[in-house]
């Protein structure tokens, strides 16, 4: 969490260019901060926008110190702690939050869709049960009432349950910016610690996910040290049987807590599962190999080595459960 703050601060405050300048720069930020406050000026300017176009325009206008405000569940705590000091907040909450819909055979979520809307959506529950399961682990009821799909994706936390699901369900992130619309594959989207592929002044406008197939099973597993706390590690898994034979035809993993960003389980390793029904020992070996290709960190909640051991177990369990469910669905219909 501390590292998260530090890098967040890096991105908010321009780095000084001369020794001793940091102190003055800091003082200046604080004084500017105060100056505005004393004269009744707020610490940041505020603009409510009603469309993505307006949002992008506003971000452009307000420049580098501007930040988009969606659910506020990640951003505002940082501002309350004075770790982040944007000069302008562009409030996206004027943009309609659409309930999950089906579009072109995929589940379509708008950026401003709240976690709670997804959780209570019958459509999502049927079409993307993995998503519904995972969202139940997100924070607490208040976080889910305000937190948004777009906000969570843009924040890019290494432990984001939504990110794990996006990776496991072939997620496509829709972004809009000065250069127009862009579709970014989930696997390309999370690039570093709290860093996404979004360009400056680009914002997330939606997420599209593959819907559950008839011969597919999914599973979400996570361990947190307390209900609602950040995951130590987590796994979203889908296993799909081949159309003709009862063997694995496709498998995907979305992993959280295993790296500085959410990552997909290594494709090459997973491909060894294709064309067969693996034994438990074989699943475990795959879990072990996938884990070996991750880089978990040590922080105040857990050591890297524990995360490594945990993730292997979670992957194994998730794959086992997903396979079992795939088999059940295949035999049922």
């Amino acid at each position, binding site marked *: *969490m*501390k590292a998260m703050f530090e890098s967040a601060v890096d991105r908010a405050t321009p780095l000084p260019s001369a020794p001793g300048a940091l*102190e003055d720069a*800091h*003082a200046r930020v*604080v*004084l500017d*901060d*105060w100056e505005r*406050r*004393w004269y009744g000026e707020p*610490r940041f300017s505020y603009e409510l926008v009603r469309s993505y176009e307006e949002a992008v325009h506003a971000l452009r206008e307000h420049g580098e110190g501007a930040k988009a405000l969606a659910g506020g569940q990640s951003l505002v*705590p940082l501002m309350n*702690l*004075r770790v982040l000091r944007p000069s302008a907040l562009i409030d996206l909450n004027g943009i309609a939050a659409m309930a999950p819909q089906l579009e072109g055979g995929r589940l379509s979520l708008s950026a401003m869709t709240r976690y709670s809307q997804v959780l209570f959506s019958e459509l999502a529950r049927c079409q993307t049960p993995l998503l519904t399961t995972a969202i139940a682990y997100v924070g607490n009821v208040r976080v889910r009432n305000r937190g948004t799909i777009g906000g969570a994706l843009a924040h890019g936390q290494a432990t984001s349950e939504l990110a794990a699901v996006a990776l496991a369900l072939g997620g496509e992130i829709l972004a809009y910016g000065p250069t127009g619309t862009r579709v970014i594959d989930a696997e390309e989207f999370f690039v570093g610690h709290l860093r996404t592929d979004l360009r400056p002044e680009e914002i997330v406008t939606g997420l599209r996910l593959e819907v559950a197939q008839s011969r597919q099973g999914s599973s979400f597993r996570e*361990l947190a*040290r*307390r*209900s*609602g*706390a*950040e995951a*130590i590690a987590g796994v979203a898994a889908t296993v799909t049987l081949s159309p003709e034979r009862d063997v694995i035809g496709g498998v995907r993993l979305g992993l959280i807590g295993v790296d500085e960003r959410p990552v997909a389980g290594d494709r090459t390793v997973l491909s060894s599962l294709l064309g067969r029904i693996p034994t*438990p*020992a074989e699943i*475990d070996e795959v879990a072990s190999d996938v884990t070996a290709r991750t880089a978990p960190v040590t*922080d*105040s*909640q*857990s*050591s890297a080595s*524990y995360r490594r*051991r*945990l993730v292997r*177990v*979670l992957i*194994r369990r998730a794959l*086992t459960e997903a396979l079992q469910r795939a088999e059940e669905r295949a035999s049922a219909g």
Partner: protein
Amino acid sequence: MSDAALAAMPGEEITVSEAPPPSIPGPPVADLPSRSPETSELQGTDTAAGAVAPMRVVGQPVAHHDFIEKVKGSILYAADWKLPGMLYGRVVRATVASAGIVSIHTDKARALRGVAAVLTAEDVPSNRLVEKATGGPGELLIATPILARDRVRYAGEPIALVAAETQQIADAAAELVQVDYEELPGVFDPEAALLPGAPLVHDAGNVLISWHIQRGDVQAALAAADVVVEGEYRTQHVEHAALETESGVGWIENDVVTLRVSTQIIEHATEIAEILKLPANKVRVMAAYMGGSFGSKEGMTVETYLALLVWKTRRPVRMVWSRQESILASTKGHPFIMRYRTGATNDGRIVAQDIDLIGDAGAYPHKSARVLFYGAALSCGPYLTPNVSVRSRAVFTNNVPTSAFRGFGARQVTLGYESQMDRLAETLAMDKVEVRRRNFLHKGDVIPTGETLDTAVAVGETLERALARLGEPSAPSAPSKRVGRGFACNMHPYGRTVWFRDSSSAWLSMQADGTLLIRCGVTDVGGGQAASLCQIASEILGVPLSRISVYIGDTALTPSAGGTFATRQLLMSGNAVMRAALQLRELVAPVAAEALGCPVAGVVFEDGRVTAAGAASAGASEEGISLGELVSMCEARSVDPTTLYVFHPEAERRGFDTEPGQLVSFPDYTYGTHAAEVEVDLETGEIEVLKYVSCHDVGRAINPLRVEGQMQGGAMQGLGYALMEEIILDEGKMASSLLANYLVPTSDDMPDVMVEIVESGEGKGPINARGIGEAVIGNAAPTIANAVADAIGLRPTQLPITPERVLALFDAADGTSASGSVSPVPGVRSAGTAADACAAG
């Protein structure tokens, strides 16, 4: 209240002969209201239950007074106070753990418009706070500065104060204060601090105090013992995390520095006056109802800073600590390192305990000397221990200071002695319940500090009830999981160590319309401290609860009751109010008797009226008179319906001899047992608590609802301490001061805490109650540790028992069970290693 009920009260003084037992606390005989000769001190058995007539208010689960305001949301806490011209305060804190202060630059902060004051050490008239000496061996008297002058000893130490027109300006100004440090070597581990050549936290040395308790000949006894079980246990820094952070408002009124703060102890007013070099009458402290405390508000928190800022600016000042500041810098619960050597016979009787305790006191003394005393005094638990040697040291480090935290040292050692008991049972292949039964203390036994127990010891009953309530064992929910059961017994003192000559007072006044005012200096942490007094007064005087108002914690206007800590309030202020009410009754009863035409002993106070007992049969009016009418009659006879009672339990005549650590320590103890069933995931180390029971002997429950609430709340806090709470310090710096990272249990983490109340009827509080507030937390950690050990055959010895630490136990054991055989769970393969379980799928 019937005379039979009166009979149940702690009785008259008993003359002390050459040998113990000590006298039962109570006023000298002459001060007691006259009673029938049948009333005498209670003997051991539970005669109280049968002898006492049912009470109307006491013993009932009534919800009243502040609790009503709390569900309405209308109660005012310390921060809910605003005055014209009020400023906002902020403490500027050190960012390094051990350093000299070279210079402090406040000019930029002062220059900020809207800043009213920036204070440093120079501005503090008497910049020192010295904890009153306990008289313990080798005790260092260390002055704690209010604001650091030339030395910083912990990260978060206050260096300067700011007051400004708005909180935002105060926060900005605080950031502009610049401190130049010269970093010095620090020491961050108490064992390292004990080594020769370790950096000194204080020039006088790193050992604050070293308590010794000796009884018999431990070395000989251990040598002769059939078995000796050794164990080392470690606990962590814990944070109180009361939902209300440290807060208060100060102002000057009639030239008196007046503070309204969230505090357990208003008596700090004298210390504040000393710091300001003011006469004591120039400082007034009022206690708001607290939003929880658990010991965090026992020492001064915002008081001195508010007082300084108010006194300097002559304007009202509010200070509310941010949550992160509270986690970073408020005092913490002590981590203990505990080493036990327990000697026993082959049939499981303890012959000796050799115990070493080390507590990390952090950078300044606070209450560490006392916490380590409690640890020492309670380190053998509720077991007869003929030969004892305990060494208990509070050691300075450059970590955040530690002080009072619910359980106060006795909490930590519960893990020590209850782990040892289970280990002893395992070593002797004995039943864990039986080994305890063979060693339980009984009334009349002598405990390690040399005193004789003079009240019922119902720990055995609490053990039975707790285990019975656990019910049938659950089956594991998956092949990779194991279910285990564990329990832990404890004893916990209530009331202050007797040589402090504790006292409490209460002032009761009946008003013209028969309503009652109680004024008592108690403070209320949320456990019904104030409301209980109303319940007691209502029972005795027959005033309905809605017609009683209670005024608490004001050094100017309420008689001193001492603070709310050491689980002393029910014992002390409860007794003060009880006796005040009895005295008031005795004062007005003759007036009533005359009016009703009956003997004084026949006057009944009930439901706001006074009647003659058996009036109907005598043909007299049943209605009697109202309390209001009675007050008029009293006034006509120049009888003032008001009393002030100072409750002074008889002070122990002998002192506490600190060398052998012998003679009377605490007035009495509360005994209990917790039991739990857990499920452990062998592959992830995750622990799920399936069932949990708390059972304590409360003597008598003044309010069963509140007693249960304490038991459930204490158990939950104990479970957090056992499983998930940890303040992590790295070279004196906190890894995280976010609430998001300090994990306290939520409703979604733990099962319901089932409660069983034992009422032995023998306690030294009013109506034979025992203090319950702190006794209820210590059992949780060993209960869980024992349950986990039962599940996996390996014993956790370090808190919190995180999933990672569980896996580390498997690693350390290297595949073999460390403590003997593991009872197989029917239908499931016996526990092997995590790897085995893994392969099983």
